């Protein structure tokens, strides 16, 4: 508990500041883009576990391609979709290190689907932070594997027609069916309550790795005000109204909670 100023023995306490694992540089993301929030949550987890010195992050191709400039730990920029394979290499090279990937929906669920699924199937002891904002942001708003049915994008200008381009990929539901995956949770960052839950999930995904439990993935429902054509505030509402009903939040797999262990 913090005491109020003026109370006996009270002193000024910092209740919130930028985590140390986040570099002191401006983020290039659009105004109101929630990538920054997730970056901060990851950095806070790194700070709170005090693992900055032994953590290696893998950046994807997409909006967060320059994440290598934002995290204070060692960083690797991977080819599009290949971050889980690169992370596998780094982790196998030195299992005592903490390895995470930070990937968007195009990177993880389209071009890199094979790498994602097989890293999970192998129960690779890595942490994956998966940003699902239902669109390709960096290239200017094309249809993503997670774009909602009917969603208008640059490459689905009449709305995503599921007869022509199929249905969105529900990554958590799919991966949770794999025996290999240790921990799969879907969270959102559109309000304080959800952000706090997201923080818990991200910390858990790192803790699992520290404890050697294996493949942990947190899908973060995130916003893209620019390419959704919404104000930052309305984009957060859109998450509540459209995204979360299609992508329900929650823990999809938690082998430890079930008492399942890998022999």
């Amino acid at each position, binding site marked *: 508990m913090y005491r109020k100023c003026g109370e006996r023995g009270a002193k000024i306490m910092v209740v919130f500041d930028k985590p140390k694992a986040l570099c002191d540089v401006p983020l290039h993301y659009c105004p109101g883009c929630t990538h920054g929030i997730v970056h901060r949550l990851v950095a806070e987890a790194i700070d709170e576990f005090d693992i900055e*010195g032994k953590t290696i992050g893998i950046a994807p191709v997409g909006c967060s391609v*320059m994440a290598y400039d934002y995290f204070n730990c060692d*960083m690797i920029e991977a*080819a599009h979709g290949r971050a889980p*394979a690169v992370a596998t*290499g*780094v982790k*196998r090279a030195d299992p005592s290190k903490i390895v995470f990937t930070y990937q968007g929906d195009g990177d993880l669920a389209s071009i890199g689907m*094979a790498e994602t699924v097989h890293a999970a199937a192998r129960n690779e002891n890595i942490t994956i932070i998966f940003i699902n904002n239902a669109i390709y942001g960096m290239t200017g708003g094309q249809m993503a594997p997670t774009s909602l049915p009917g969603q208008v994008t640059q490459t689905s200008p009449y709305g995503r027609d599921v007869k022509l381009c199929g249905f969105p990929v529900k990554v958590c539901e799919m991966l949770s069916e794999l025996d290999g995956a240790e921990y799969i949770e879907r969270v959102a960052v559109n309000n304080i309550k959800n952000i706090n839950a997201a923080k818990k999930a991200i910390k858990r995904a790192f803790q699992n790795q520290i404890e050697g439990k294996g493949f942990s993935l947190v899908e973060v429902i995130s916003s893209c005000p620019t390419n959704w054509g919404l104000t930052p505030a309305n984009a957060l509402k859109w998450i509540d109204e459209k995204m979360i009903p299609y992508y329900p939040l929650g823990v999809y797999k938690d082998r430890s909670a079930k008492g399942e262990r890998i022999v």
Partner: protein
Amino acid sequence: MADKVLMKGNEAIAEAAIIAGCRHYFGYPITPQTEVAAYMAKKMPKIGGTFLQAESEIAAINMVYGVSSAGKRVMTSSSSPGISLKGEGLSYLAGADLPAFVVNVQRGGPGLGGIQPSQSDYFQSTRGGGHGDYRMIVYAPASVQEMASLTVKAFESADKYRMTAMILADGTMGQMMEPVDLASLKVNPAPEKLWATTGTGKKREHNIINSLYLKPEELEKVNFERYERYQTVEADEVMYEEYLMNDAEICVAAFGIAARVSKNAINEARARGIKVGMIRPITLWPFPKNVFKKAAEKAHTFISVELSMGQMIEDVKLSTECKANYLLCNRVGGMIPLPEQVLKCIENAAKGELK
């Protein structure tokens, strides 16, 4: 006296890699290089190493990218179609200046092609394979012993120049059994890799492994710097074998299995009084340009013996500034030229028949 063991070429590569300090292997099954993976699958778990059968060639080369980023010696092996899949990773390795060792035991192409020996990935390996301006050091062994010794050499030069070094073998080299002296392999330890992403330990600025440069002037600068490094490679790393070249008026150019076949033909031609010799490039890049240029002072005709539709012959012509006569003696699709075919070609050249 050194102990020799009888090994397949593919196994010699695998064992030599372990001797060179490689403890991480990633691959995907494809004929005719499978013995490399099989050997690693048996050996690596027993020496605390990693053997991982990846979900694809693409994943395998990116796992290589990861281990290399972490500063350790690492390899993958494949055959032609698989190397095409690795093209993306090879380009990224080059762009991020990461050392790696890649083996291509070639088979006939294009497409799915066949599973018999070929040398038709010469362009792919010496000209790139992936996108962008980059080079790989390409070694072409012509014996099982060289499969081993060039593997060690490849790890060392990859580390030294922070680039990919490739063994470009073919199905024959991979499957052939010969006695190998492994005890004679001398390995230089890997240099200190201060650039590696091994964790900052909170003692240094964070390292970044990256190939993205959005500012054109920066990207130009790193490209120029990389090519300065490549110039050093061209100056210092050229390897070749000259055979009976002192008085040669006809010069055979051949590497790998084609060079072994050619040697028999040359011996026969010499017996028939024809002044013929051979230059066998051991590094295909850097190509022994100057050796060929010098040979052109005496030789009037160059015969390129290849298991391709004529790929190395372009480098022979470039090196000799197109001043001589040139003949292509080739078989493709998994076929191998017989010594008689090469001999016929040499005899034609001696008679001035250029076909």
